[in-house]
């Protein structure tokens, strides 16, 4: 690497200033504020406030609603991540192997990527609408009493379905480019060494895709935790009885609709810590299995 010498020792800092200020304004400052508010108890009208140390945390962790939301968020994230990764990989593998119409498949599978989460939610609410939603009618026609408005399980399945569907296209793009980056001669060498295509996939292709998979695993978990907010807000809004409330959505509801600034700040700090620990864990243990 070439080392650049600057005459003035402040110039390098000037160059990183834009990036630093973006991080400071949009991450460090709000995070600090969240930490600050999480120690404050404010009355409903915002007139008086009191420093209460860990009272907010205590009440959050003792709240059965919060534990239920945590449970749903974990199951939701695991399933959304699993399905969107698995289906994205499957489609990418099949597209990569297809000889004819490769471009067409690629284009079609990439389309959903361009749709905003809120629009996906809106579309989902049409599809699953009780009045005349096609998927609603179809599922009920199959004999399943599918009622996302009143049945918690239906609502949860619907959310997992829609959230996974939205993310498949992103995973598809990354997996496809990952597959195309595998040298052709390695695939050919494995064709000579191993007859079974399933075994070839798991012993050669999947390990060579591991950097892509690892990256997508982290981004998908973050997606399921945070980016599904718009989707939930346009479909169930946590309904029927809060069973489809992810942690991120609960923070919004408690803080902005419930005006419990202290409680929701405590929740967001907890969420931040949780994601941090999860990511550190992934880097520490999973990354060892990644072959760059």
């Amino acid at each position, binding site marked *: 690497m070439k080392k650049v010498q600057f005459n003035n020792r402040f110039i390098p800092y000037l160059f990183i200033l834009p990036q630093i200020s973006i991080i400071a304004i949009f991450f460090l400052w709000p995070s600090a504020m969240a930490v600050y508010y999480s120690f404050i108890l404010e009355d409903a009208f915002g007139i008086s406030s009191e420093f209460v140390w860990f009272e907010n945390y205590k009440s959050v962790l003792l709240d059965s609603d919060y534990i239920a939301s945590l449970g749903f968020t974990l199951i939701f994230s695991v399933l959304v991540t699993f399905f969107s990764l698995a289906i994205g990989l499957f489609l990418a593998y099949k597209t990569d192997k297809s000889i004819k119409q490769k471009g067409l498949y690629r284009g079609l599978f990439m389309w959903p990527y361009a749709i905003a989460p809120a629009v996906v939610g809106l579309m989902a609410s049409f599809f699953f609408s009780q009045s005349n939603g096609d998927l609603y009618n179809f599922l009920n026609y199959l004999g399943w009493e599918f009622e996302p408005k009143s049945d918690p399980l239906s609502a949860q399945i619907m959310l997992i379905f829609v959230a996974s569907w939205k993310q498949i296209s992103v995973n598809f793009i990354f997996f496809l480019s990952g597959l195309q980056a595998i040298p052709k001669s*390695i695939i050919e060498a494995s*064709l*000579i060494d*191993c007859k079974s295509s399933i075994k070839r996939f798991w*012993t*050669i292709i999947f390990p*060579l895709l591991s950097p892509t998979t690892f990256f997508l695993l982290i981004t998908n978990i973050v997606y399921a935790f945070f980016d599904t907010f718009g989707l939930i807000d346009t479909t169930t809004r946590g309904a029927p009885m809060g069973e489809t409330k992810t942690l991120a959505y609960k923070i919004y509801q408690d803080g902005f609709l419930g005006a419990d600034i202290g409680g929701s700040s405590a929740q967001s700090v907890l969420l931040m810590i949780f994601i941090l620990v999860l990511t550190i864990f992934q880097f520490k243990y999973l990354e060892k299995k990644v*072959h760059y």
Partner: protein
Amino acid sequence: MLYLELKNVSKNYDGKNKIIKDISLGIKKGEFIVIVGPSGCGKSTLLRMVAGLEDISDGDIVIDKAVVNNISPADRDIAMVFQNYALYPHMNVLKNLSYGLKNRKISKDEIEKRVVSISKLLQIEELLHRKPSELSGGQKQRVAMGRAIIRKPKLFLFDEPLSNLDAKLRHQMRIEIRKLHDKLGITSVYVTHDQVEAMTLADRIIILNGGKIEQIGTPKEIYENPNSIFVSKFMGTPPMNIIKAKVKNSTIEIGDISIDLKNSYNEEYIHVGIRAEDISLSDFNNSIKLRVDIDMIEHLGSESFIYSTIENNPIIVKSSEFIETKEDKLDIYINTKKLYFFSDKEGKIL
């Protein structure tokens, strides 16, 4: 007894674009065959068709009496060494060597036995637990060879295995490959664009040009009796000198000298071929003198190449002396017994 047989094999994409045009050939057990040709002549495609990595558009490929057209590469009992080695980057050398055996359900003991003997043979014992990224080019090459040898296949296929190595290592590996072949005796097909590799490695050389076989023969036959201008120019460094000369009443004229033709020939022009080593700077028996214009002299230490022209035909002369001259003209003596005559239209030997 033919071991590998190609019967009227053709390859085309979408019905046109013929890459391999109706090739038939037979290879005996234990033979080392080198397919050589310029880039784009279809030599790699031909090899990949034998391996099963490319479909066959027409014809049959027979390995050990069995037609293998529709048999998967894994079931053809062949092993291939790729140009860029194609080692599995996520597996260490040991796993790279044993991967193909494991998938063929060979017992652990047997695999271990073979790994030990192969790594000894190729001197890669110390590398068994390293990843390919931690190996040098020559070491990767050895491992790639090992992965092929360990399978004990019916057929070895080499796809320009040495072209990623530097000149010195290439020379060394070339010798090792030939030694290994003499030791193991496995029928081998080796594709290269390097005529030196072809000359030194092959029992028989197949010269491919534009998807067709130009000539098949031992290195000696090919070098001494090239049957076309293409072959004569392709084999040998420097390439054979070809002079286009006008024909007059069964004599040909080059510069101010004329040479009698043995047979009658009824085209206007003829191509006369002479190898650089059959030209001398001093008079000798059966020689004729030509006066040429010197373009450039190249000194290699042990020998010199004189690049010259006569009537716009380039002529390269090889001399074992260190030539220094200020003049721009030179007398050269060519051996009339070592002249080759090629037809003008087809470039075939006469």
